[in-house]
């Protein structure tokens, strides 16, 4: 809200009596090691952790149950919470909220550094935050992926064990939790933050500080959830069901607090995106001219802002159970373990659509570019996304079909769950309709989009099996479910993320990704993704429950097949990382300004994108995606004579 204030005063010249005009940089904002950056965040984070730990011990030292158990959840909670606050303070996220107390509107808080160190700072430029997010989610994904390799290693043999059951269950829980947290942000964070303002023709985000805060909270959340391992891990899986939650040790605090912290970041990210999309669309960009990726981010943001507070509250109650000994989830003391299941899944089901919708958005955005024709049934696609978002609030009890609650509600939840496949089907109508009589270009991003349609179909159809209560009896809680959601989240979202990266990295970095290595990556990932997870449907049907370290010996063949495929799937990510290093540093190939000949607004800006995005705020003239249409007007009027030439390569 402050940048435009600032700009306007620049245009009109100094406002009389405005003292900020000549204000000098405070020492925290100067370039150099001692200013606020990642290092100060680490230092203050550690100091905060130590203070919190001391404070927690001080507060609770008088209680017998704590001194007798040798576990002090209060100290753990406060240590992590203070650590998060220290981290945020160290990076500089708290300067502005503090200055606000004195009536400052924070204009002087812009990051003054415009060199590579801005990527290690609290930057308010949505493009910097987007790139920070790219690195953040890739780090997250790599950690979770390594844990997945460990899981598959343990499942190589039902009788010879590589890990103790204790270690194994920690690995499984950590894998699930990390991946869920990562997948929530994997598109909204990097690509949403980077491209939404560009695609709606805005020069900025609505709340750049909240956007930056969401990223730094995301990183703090990563560390909090990872702190579970040194604390001894938690045995509950990512669902954290009570009473196992109540029973387990200090690692559980990291899980609960980690979700609360990450949840806060999710709420903030969604909040900023929703407000930006609603208010900062360029003139002329009516709701029927909004790119479909932006629609998907808007629908996702609605879910992020409205569903995540429930997770936050659920995590808070769990932390209270752990620390001040309340009994929200303790049956014996007037609580109810089902309460957690209800709160968790009331968040948890919208959560899975948070992880699906951005993927649909990317598919819808990329298809017209590579099909050289308009998106088929544009309105249906946005209606589908909104329909999915709305319905997702009414399906949560399908996770509790065998739990023993509300048997009379099962037909209703079966109905709502199956109804959600209607708006999801819209996405297929749009995708298939766009392919009809197109001129398809098989570029790398397109391959990933096509793979998404292939994978998500299997994920979606098996979802209908799961929603059917009689079939659910057999498949619930087994590898069938596991395979189903890997098909939707990994097969859908992760493939969409890869499509998005291959598509937009030339814009973000000014370098083309190597096509040959990219094809190797794609085929390895696509083939071995299917070879890893398809056998798991059969494994599940044959009776293998989730999260087990041992299984029936007759399933060893299928499990080994799956494990070996998983290793190659894991290797395909190394190929991807190699491609990144190769294309960005080893043998950079400068990207043309618009390598895919897209009509999208984001490609019409200069590369590298100036901090203000657009020379003039563009005026949107017509609907998006009017490819191959004779005499179609240009999408936007940029109001400049020297619009970037799309043919000359520019250096990043």
């Amino acid at each position, binding site marked *: 809200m402050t*940048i*435009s*204030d*600032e*700009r*306007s005063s*620049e*245009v009109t010249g100094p406002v009389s*009596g*405005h003292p*900020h005009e000549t204000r000098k940089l405070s020492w925290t904002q100067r370039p150099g090691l001692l200013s606020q950056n990642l290092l100060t965040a680490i230092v203050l984070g550690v100091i905060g952790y130590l203070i919190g730990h001391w404070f927690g011990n001080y507060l609770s030292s008088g209680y017998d149950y704590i001194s007798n158990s040798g576990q002090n959840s209060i100290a753990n909670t406060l240590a992590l919470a203070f650590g998060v606050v220290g981290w945020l303070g160290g990076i500089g996220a708290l300067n502005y909220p503090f200055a*606000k*107390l*004195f*009536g*400052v*509107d924070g*204009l*002087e808080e*812009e990051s*003054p550094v*415009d060199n590579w160190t801005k990527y290690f700072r609290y930057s308010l*430029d949505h493009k910097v935050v987007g790139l920070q997010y790219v690195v953040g989610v890739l780090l997250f994904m790599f950690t979770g992926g390594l844990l997945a390799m460990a899981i598959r290693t343990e499942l190589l043999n039902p009788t010879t064990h590589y890990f103790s059951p204790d270690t194994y269950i920690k690995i499984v829980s950590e894998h699930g939790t990390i991946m869920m947290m990562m997948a929530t942000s994997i598109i909204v964070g990097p690509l949403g933050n980077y491209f939404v303002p560009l695609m709606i023709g805005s020069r*900025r985000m*609505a709340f750049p500080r909240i956007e930056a805060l969401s990223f730094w909270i995301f990183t703090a959340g990563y560390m909090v959830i990872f702190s579970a391992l040194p604390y001894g891990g938690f045995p509950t899986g990512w669902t954290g069901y009570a009473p196992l939650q109540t029973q387990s040790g200090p690692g559980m605090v990291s899980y609960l607090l980690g979700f609360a912290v990450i949840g806060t970041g999710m*709420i903030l990210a969604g*909040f900023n995106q*929703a*407000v930006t999309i*609603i*208010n900062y669309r360029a003139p002329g960009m009516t709701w029927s001219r909004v790119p479909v990726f932006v629609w998907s981010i808007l629908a996702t943001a609605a879910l992020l*802002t*409205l*569903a995540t*507070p*429930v997770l936050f*509250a659920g995590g*808070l*109650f769990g932390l*209270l159970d752990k620390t*001040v*000994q*309340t*009994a*929200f989830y*303790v*049956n014996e*003391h*007037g*609580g*109810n373990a*089902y*309460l957690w299941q209800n*709160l968790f899944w*009331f968040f948890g089901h919208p959560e899975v659509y948070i992880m699906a919708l951005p993927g649909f958005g990317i598919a819808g955005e990329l298809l017209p570019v590579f099909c050289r024709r308009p998106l088929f049934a544009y309105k249906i696609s946005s209606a589908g996304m909104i329909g999915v978002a709305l319905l997702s609030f009414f399906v949560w009890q399908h996770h509790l079909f065998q739990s023993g609650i509300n048997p009379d509600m099962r037909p209703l939840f079966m109905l709502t769950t199956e109804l959600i496949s209607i708006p999801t089907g819209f996405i297929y109508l749009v995708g298939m309709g766009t392919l009809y009589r197109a001129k398809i270009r098989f570029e790398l991003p397109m391959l990933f989009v096509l793979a998404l349609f292939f994978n998500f179909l299997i994920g979606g159809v098996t979802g209908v099996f799961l929603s059917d209560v009689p079939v659910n009896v057999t498949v619930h809680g087994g590898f069938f479910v596991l395979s189903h959601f890997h098909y939707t989240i990994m097969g859908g979202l992760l493939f969409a993320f890869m499509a998005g990266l291959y598509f937009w990295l030339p814009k973000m970095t000014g370098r083309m990704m190597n096509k040959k290595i990219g094809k190797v990556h794609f085929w390895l990932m696509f083939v071995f993704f299917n070879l890893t997870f398809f056998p798991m449907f059969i494994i599940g049907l044959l009776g293998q429950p989730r999260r087990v370290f041992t299984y029936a010996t007759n399933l060893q063949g299928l499990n080994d097949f799956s494990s070996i495929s998983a290793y190659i799937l894991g290797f395909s990510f190394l190929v991807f990382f190699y491609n990144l290093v190769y294309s960005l540093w080893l043998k950079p190939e400068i990207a043309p300004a618009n390598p895919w000949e897209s009509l999208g607004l984001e490609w019409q800006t200069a590369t590298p994108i100036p*901090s*203000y995005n657009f*020379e*003039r*705020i563009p005026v949107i003239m017509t609907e998006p995606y009017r490819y191959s249409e004779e005499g179609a007007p240009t999408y936007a009027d940029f109001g400049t004579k020297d619009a970037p030439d799309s043919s000359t390569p520019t250096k990043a």
Partner: protein
Amino acid sequence: MSNSVIQSGTPSQSPEEREYEMRALISSIWTGGRLFIGIYTFMLASLVFSYFYLRSSNSGQLWRPDHVTAPRGFGFAIFGLTLVTGLLAYVGRKRLVKGSFMDFSVAAWFGVGTSLIALVLQIVELSHLSFWPGSSGYASTFIGFSVMNIMSLVISTYWLETTVARGMRIRKELSGENPEFTSHPRARAFRADVAAMSYFLVFLTLAGALLFAMFYLM
């Protein structure tokens, strides 16, 4: 500010562009304020849901043995102060719209005071409970309510304080211009902020009434 990244190389803005972004800024504050109410509603709804869920399941007949109640004196005092804060925010904004910045700032500073006292009372109340946190379902949800109420009171105190401080600063820095009237961008943003703040505080008061009734009266 003059050294900011944004400034370096920023193209000059036409008056139309400036106004366009200004309007987007104002409506962002409007949208953001309403969306924040939505977020907060879902968080409080989780508490309300937990309350009624535990009440109806009554595990081990331990929902609320002997109808334990948190100290009512504290409850009435805290809710009364919340109510006053909400009213002050509402009236203060009305007065600002009418053109009296002085009335607004008096109301807001009083609001900061009442909200702070409520915050202190809410914390002190926790050491005057007649039950242990884990003694019943009611006790647990009450602790959850207290934590959320502390959050609410911190937010309302902070938001009231920052708006009124901002208004005073604008008044000082734009000497001769009144934040209630001037069309200076900072003043326009300030007024939008006050509107969002007063809306949120009125929402908190209404939600507080429901929670007060649930925990102290029912």
